[in-house]
Each structure stands twice: as C-alpha cells, then as structure tokens.
C-alpha cells in the first residue's frame, strides 16, 4: 500500500538501502572534478583518485597509466558494489537488480555480433565487453550467422530470450539490421522493466516510471535524429519507439515523420519538461543535446534519493556511477591528449 512501505521495507531492504546510500556519499563532487581537471597527466589523476573510493582499485597499477586502465578499474568498483548488493538481496529486490544488468547484456551482444561481422578476434571483443553484462555462453555468439541462429544457439537460455520475439527474422546480420536489433531488444527490455516496476507498486513504481519514461523518450529522440537521412522508413522508425513515456503516443506520431533536427525541436518543445532542454540550445546545434540529456538524467537520478524505502535508489546509484565513469574517461582522455580546454564540454557535475 503506497505510503505504508516504511513499516515493512526494512525487513528485507533496510540494510542494502543504507549501503547504497553510503556508496552514494562516495560519488565524486564538483570539487573533486575541479581537482581532476587541474591535473597535468594521468599519474596526477591517479593520485587524486587515490583519496576517493577508487583508491584501493588504482593503487597497484604500474606507472605508465592508460586511460582504458583507469576506466576498467573504476568499472570494477561498480561491479563489486553491484555483486555485493545482489548476493545480499532477496526477492523482489534481486529481480529488480538483475533487470539493471540486461541493458549491458544487450550492448555486449551487439558488440560481439558487430565485431564478428567486421572480422575481429573473439577474445579481443570479450575483453571490451562490459563486465556487468557477461553471461555464460557469450563467446558462442561469434558463431551465429543470422538472427534465428543467434536466438537458437545462445540467447534462448539467457534472460534476454523473451525480448527476441519481435526480432526473429532469417535475414543475415549486417550493420543496419544489427542496429535495428539493438533498438528492438532495448525497447522490449524497457517495456518489461516498466511493467515489472508497475507490479511492485508504491514509491518504487512512481519513481521508476519517471526515470524509465525519460529513458524511453530520450531513446526515441536519439533514434529519430540518428535515422534522419538513412534508409530507415517511417514505419520502421515508429516500431522502435517504446510504448510508454511522455511522448507516447502522439509525440511518437510526430517524431516518426521528422526529417531534420529543427522539426524534432518543434515536436519536443510542445512538452514542458523537454522544452527546457531544447531551449538551451540555439538553432542547428545538436552536439550539446547529448550533454543536455545527461544533465537532465542526472538531475532526476539525484532526486530519487530524496525518498526512503524504495528500490529506485539502486537503479539511480548504478546510473550515477556509470555517468561518473564516463566523466572520468573524458577527463582522462583530455588530460592524456593535452586538450584541457575541452574538458568542460562533456563533464556532467552531480553534486
């Protein structure tokens, strides 16, 4: 019953909620980012990070550091936190935490299939996969020639199996089909997650509905912008939009027929939450759109921590960590390539 979760949430979720809030306190603040932006080289970055929660992960790295090493070790911390929480969780929290991984699994599947198409070595691709999205038979993906085989050989045993019902064709895999497959899988995943959260009810469903709706709308806009000028037809484009969110269904009708960015802007400005985002950009500028979306997402994720006794804090923490890792990657790359003037282009500050 909404409003009375405080009475029973702590039986199973109290300890883990307190732990995730402790982790949230360890996220980097604006002051930390300012220190990192002043660094001259990657060893300086390592020194500054050793004072944060990443310290124990980076301290044993030998001196000529690489940006990929920094990102890999920071991702390792995220994975350790996640696994610790997952092994302590009971139902339904454990199912909720598992859902957070499926997005990464989809990305890994697409990475391996695309890499195989371009004839890369499987081992090399496996090393690039996100650790949260690994599953047992992932290496077998390299063998599949078309989607039906992909499903039959590998994916039918994974949690992604139910998302494949809309994707099963016998066409061979090529770049375009793989992108369509990625978006179709992600659409099915988001809708499944949304329904699961609705079933949980209470504060979890309210906050997660907002966060997932924003995700669905953001993906709709990105799909639209990326498919302008390609061979993707309007009906196909419309099929890739999720069936929930602020833009469903009328916004989707209008987005499906957009042919350039200004038309997209015209559609989005009818929705007050997105009007604020689009009004920050002047006409014809789409590079800032990604950063504006990230900033809006971070703002909503931080708001999820304002309420107690729900599961959305776990989702919010994972997403905030991922954003932080993206920030660290950008800062490391700028420092390594001596382009510090561009650092502030893409760092999203959280607190």
């Amino acid at each position, binding site marked *: 019953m909404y409003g009375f979760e*405080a*009475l029973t949430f*702590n*039986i199973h979720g*109290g*300890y*883990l*909620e*307190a*732990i995730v*809030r*402790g*982790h949230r*306190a*360890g996220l980097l603040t604006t002051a930390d980012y300012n220190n990192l932006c002043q660094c001259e080289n990657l060893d300086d970055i390592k020194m500054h990070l050793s004072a944060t929660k990443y310290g124990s992960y980076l301290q044993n790295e030998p001196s000529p550091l690489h940006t990929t090493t920094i990102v890999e070790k920071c991702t390792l911390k995220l994975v350790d936190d996640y696994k610790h929480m997952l092994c302590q969780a009971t139902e339904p929290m454990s199912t909720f935490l598992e859902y957070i991984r499926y997005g990464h699994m989809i990305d890994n599947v697409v990475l391996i299939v695309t890499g195989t198409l371009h004839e890369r070595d499987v081992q090399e691709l496996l090393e690039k996969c996100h650790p949260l999205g690994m599953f047992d038979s992932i290496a077998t993906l390299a063998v599949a020639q078309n989607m039906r085989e992909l499903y039959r050989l590998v994916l039918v045993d994974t949690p992604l199996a139910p998302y494949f019902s809309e994707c099963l064709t016998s066409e061979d895999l090529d770049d375009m089909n793989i992108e369509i497959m990625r978006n179709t899988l992600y659409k099915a995943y988001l809708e499944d997650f949304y329904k699961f959260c609705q079933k949980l009810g209470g504060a979890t469903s309210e906050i997660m509905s907002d966060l997932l709706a924003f995700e669905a709308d953001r993906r709709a806009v990105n799909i639209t912008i990326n498919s302008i000028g390609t061979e993707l037809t309007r009906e196909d484009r419309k099929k890739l939009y999720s069936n929930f969110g602020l833009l469903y269904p009328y916004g989707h009708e209008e987005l499906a027929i957009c042919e350039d960015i200004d038309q997209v802007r015209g559609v989005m400005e009818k929705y007050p939450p997105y009007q604020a985002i689009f009004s920050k950009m002047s006409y014809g500028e789409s590079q800032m759109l990604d950063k504006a979306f990230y900033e809006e997402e971070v703002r909503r994720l931080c708001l999820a921590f304002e309420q*107690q006794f729900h599961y959305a804090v776990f989702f919010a923490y994972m997403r905030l960590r991922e954003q932080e890792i993206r920030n660290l990657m950008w800062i490391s790359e700028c420092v390594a390539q001596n382009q510090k003037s561009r650092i502030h282009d893409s760092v999203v500050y959280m607190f």
Partner: protein
Amino acid sequence: MSGAAIHASSWAAALVRISPYTFSAIGIAISIGVSVLGAAWGIYITGSSLIGAAIEAPRITSKNLISVIFCEAVAIYGVIVAIILQTKLESVPSSKMYDAESLRAGYAIFASGIIVGFANLVCGLCVGIIGSSCALSDAQNSTLFVKILVIEIFGSALGLFGVIVGIIMSAQATWPTK
C-alpha cells in the same frame, strides 16, 4: 441490580456475564504484548538502516543508539503499566463478581491496557521510522542529527500520553469491598 432490565438471552446479557477478571487479564496482556511489538518493530526498522549506514560512516553508531533507546523506552512503559495493572487486581466473593462495580473495575483495567498497548505500538513505529531516516541523514551530513532527534523526541511523547491516560484509567479500578 440496577440499570435497564436485561433479557436473559440477549447479547448484552452475554457480555455482562463475562467475568471482569477475563477483561482485566486481556487488558494486562495487551498492555505488555502490544507495547513490546511496537518497540521491537521500531528497533528493527532503525537497526537495519543503522548497521548498513555505519559501514561507510562508522562515526554514527554511538550517537544513533539513542533512537534504539527511545524505542526501548516504549517497551518499558508497557512493562510498568502491566505491573501497575496487576497490582490493581483483587479478589471479590462470587456473589459480588457480576456487580456493576466489579464490572467497572474489570473494564477499567481492560481499557487501560488497550490504551497503553496501542499508543506504544504507534509510538514505537514512529520513533523507529524516524530513527532510520536519522541514521541515514547523519551518515551524509552530521549537522542533521540533532535536528532530527527533536522530531524523535516529539514522537516518543506519544507513548507517554498513552501511559498517563492508562494510569489515570487504572486508578478507577476499585473493586467492591467485601
């Protein structure tokens, strides 16, 4: 017997033929049992959050035990009132057991027990939930502790109201003299 004429087989007759000692005993049981339920519920709500938050911020443990102590106080109120109530029980001869005065004494003890039990139940819950939020906020920002503690103190006053009214009620429990 005074009062309205009671037909021998109506529900009212059945109710007044229940021994006042039954009502007293149930009242005493509820007073202690439900109070302890409230205290335990509050303690586990606070305790689970406190343990998790103390992993990243160990400094909060000693201060936040106050929340647990406030919840415990609720159980102590229940015990005190139960002891007071049971000292109010006296034997009356069987001829006087269903007199109006005996029934009144039995009902007074019963009501006192319910008042104290349920007031302490909600007080324990209230203090427990606030204690959980207090621990989590203290872990993030230590200046918040004292402010949230004030809210907890107001919450624990609820149990005290219940105890006061319960004791006043139980003072009415005078059994007929032999």
